[in-house]
């Protein structure tokens, strides 16, 4: 009885996202953005990044969010070129879209094809979706962020999203980690046990590119070569809002809008 009252004492703490933007998710520094007219002089920008996420040629600088671990080194050293972007909607269905600022324009048609294909596959699993997670060499924090989706602030049950123990019941596969070779077999078997259609979401920079761990004798440097990944959620780790956005994006329930990147025409 005491617990019933305790459960009521703080009212509703649950976010309205995605119906309304959430102030915490909107203010969170979940990505780095690059100025199209870099204002820093002197010094090469590439070496400042520990994961090789930065490339430049002829004064045009690009940053690959799929490699960025948000250490902030570039923002500290070249504040005229790099800055923090706020907003948690960092996920994308296209690996190339994670490269900012250019990434997209000329690939528009391909992107549309990818999205149309995804939409066709997920049509049947819109409102009741079961999720299975597999850790393939994470540092442990991604699991905390995914688990957080079940706490009352996110409460994904309200969106018809449920976590399931059995891959046979699952529609969405969330994968984390830099691709530990010891998990290759278990990951493949889990994926094969899932009934089609399946949507795969890579959660975290480690899962996309290996992050700082990269490719070692024990890791494959991300999971994109091991699985057909539909949506990538960068971040080290990505906050729960980013993970949630990634799942909803995969299900076609929210549009893609990368922080610091103008909306698509």
């Amino acid at each position, binding site marked *: 009885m005491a617990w019933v009252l305790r459960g009521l004492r703080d009212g509703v703490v649950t976010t309205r996202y995605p119906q309304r933007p959430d102030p915490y998710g909107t203010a969170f520094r979940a990505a780095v953005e690059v100025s199209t007219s870099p204002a820093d002089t002197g010094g090469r920008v590439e070496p400042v990044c520990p994961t090789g996420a930065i490339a430049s040629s002829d004064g045009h600088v690009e940053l690959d969010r799929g490699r960025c671990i948000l250490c902030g080194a570039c923002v500290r050293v070249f504040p005229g070129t790099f800055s923090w972007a706020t907003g948690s909607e960092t996920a994308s269905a296209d690996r190339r879209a994670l490269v900012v600022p250019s990434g997209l324009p000329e690939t528009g048609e391909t992107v549309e094809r990818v999205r149309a294909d995804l939409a066709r596959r997920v049509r049947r699993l819109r409102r009741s979706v079961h999720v299975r997670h597999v850790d393939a060499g994470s540092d442990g924090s991604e699991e905390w962020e995914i688990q957080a989706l079940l706490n009352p602030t996110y409460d994904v049950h309200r969106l018809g999203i449920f976590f399931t123990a059995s891959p046979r019941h699952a529609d969405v596969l969330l994968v984390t980690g830099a691709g530990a070779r010891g998990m290759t077999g278990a990951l493949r078997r889990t994926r094969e046990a899932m009934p089609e259609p399946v949507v795969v979401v890579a959660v975290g920079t480690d899962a996309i590119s290996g992050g*700082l761990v990269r490719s070692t004798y024990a890791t494959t440097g991300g999971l994109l070569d091991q699985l057909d990944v539909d949506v990538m959620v960068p971040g080290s780790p990505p906050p729960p809002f980013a993970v949630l956005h990634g799942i909803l994006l995969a299900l076609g329930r929210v549009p893609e809008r990368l922080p610091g990147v103008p909306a698509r025409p």
Partner: protein
Amino acid sequence: MSTAAARDLHPAPTWREQVARRVAAGDRFAGLFATAEDDSSVRLSAALASARTVTLLDTTVPDRGSYPALTLLVPAAFWYDRAIHDLFGVVPEEHPRLDPLLLPLDEGDPPPRPGAPDRPGPLHPHERALQAHLAGDGMFTLPHGPVRSGVVEAVEFLIETPGEDIPHLRVRVHHKHRGLEKRFEELPIERGVLLAERVEGIASVAHALAFAHAVEDLGDIGVPPAAGLVRLVHAELERVANHLDVAMRLADAAALAVATARFGWHKERVLRLRSELCGSRYGRGVVTVGGVLAGLALPSAQAAAALDTIERDIAGDEHAAMATPSFLDRLRGTGLLPPDIAATHGALGPVGRASGAGEDVRTSRPYDAYQQLAVRPVDGHAAGDVQDRLRVRWAELHEAFRLARHAVALLTEYGEPLPLTELRVPVDVPDGRGVGWAEAPQGEVLYLVEVADGRLRRVAPRSASFHNLPLLHTVFAGDIFTDFPFIEASFGLSVAGVAL
């Protein structure tokens, strides 16, 4: 800040006697590290913790050679011997069970040998190198993992059982071995902190601190007092988040839905407070060698108010949980870790402290602001069951709030925002070897860092999770299947920090 370690070199058999003698004399066995010296030898370093320092005792073993297994004289070395066998190919002689632990290799596969200059190519775990499942009179093995129910890290438990009780348990962690020790060797010193933060992601701050302390020990670098206070605030909030995670998992195991939701909500608020203080929900990007990269991003009054509110809300739910009979019934007498085993093994952190052991390095070998702000010891809960481990965590959680509040108050004296000179000192690191430690929420984290030609030649992290996890073998006496989630949660460990 920390103390330089004494270094002696002995031939392996004498070395083992020496280590055993030191442990018998009261030193705590804190870890066994290895480094590939060159093509021809491997150096073993036993870390012994005494009153105010950590001493390293060294010996050298020929490459692919052998040494008398340390675990025969020092039982706590059981997993360390196995890990060294996997990664270096040297054989601990007469080891009672030399199963692969971190990396099951096929015959003929070269071990990765951290410390050696070469970069090994892909090594695929060889499942047949593992011991087969046990079968026998009425006994069967229940394999559980590496893909388990819930959102958890990959680990495999082999529960050997005649039916309901669990007389024997085996733990396999190799699935998520990431080869981090070799990866450290490719990084410049200042980037080592970033990888240390990812060794055990839920204890990022403690790992970054232990790494930084090792380098600071080597370079004899003292961090500014204000930086020490900032480090303390982040480290203590990490402790609060981890302890709340354990409480949440215990409540979940007992199917207390409201308690699970409440503790999950509190944990989320703590992670949000951490992100407001530094941009990261895990305190990443704060610690650097020589100090911190930034002060607290919230005004001190606001930070103090947030700490007060969250602690008050937690206390209400804590008292309710600790007065819920259906909850306590599951914790009491479950997963008993007898004090004598805890002491022999040198059990770390809350797991050790709930069984009367578990040195707290914030008190015994204080670093950063803990030299100024004393940690009050936790006492009175030494029966060693799941309930005691939770009680120790509650006491530590409130102490963490007290320390963080105190540090926030002291920080105002240095001005807001902190001037650059108070954040960090310039760093010049000579070649050599340093030892660093920090008290993570899981217990003592130890780092051995060796610098050569201004680069990281060898980094050997030892998480409290690695040291404590083998104790899981011993705590199932009389417990049954349904106790498993309680016992596992009560350890509060992370697999990432074990498998490296």
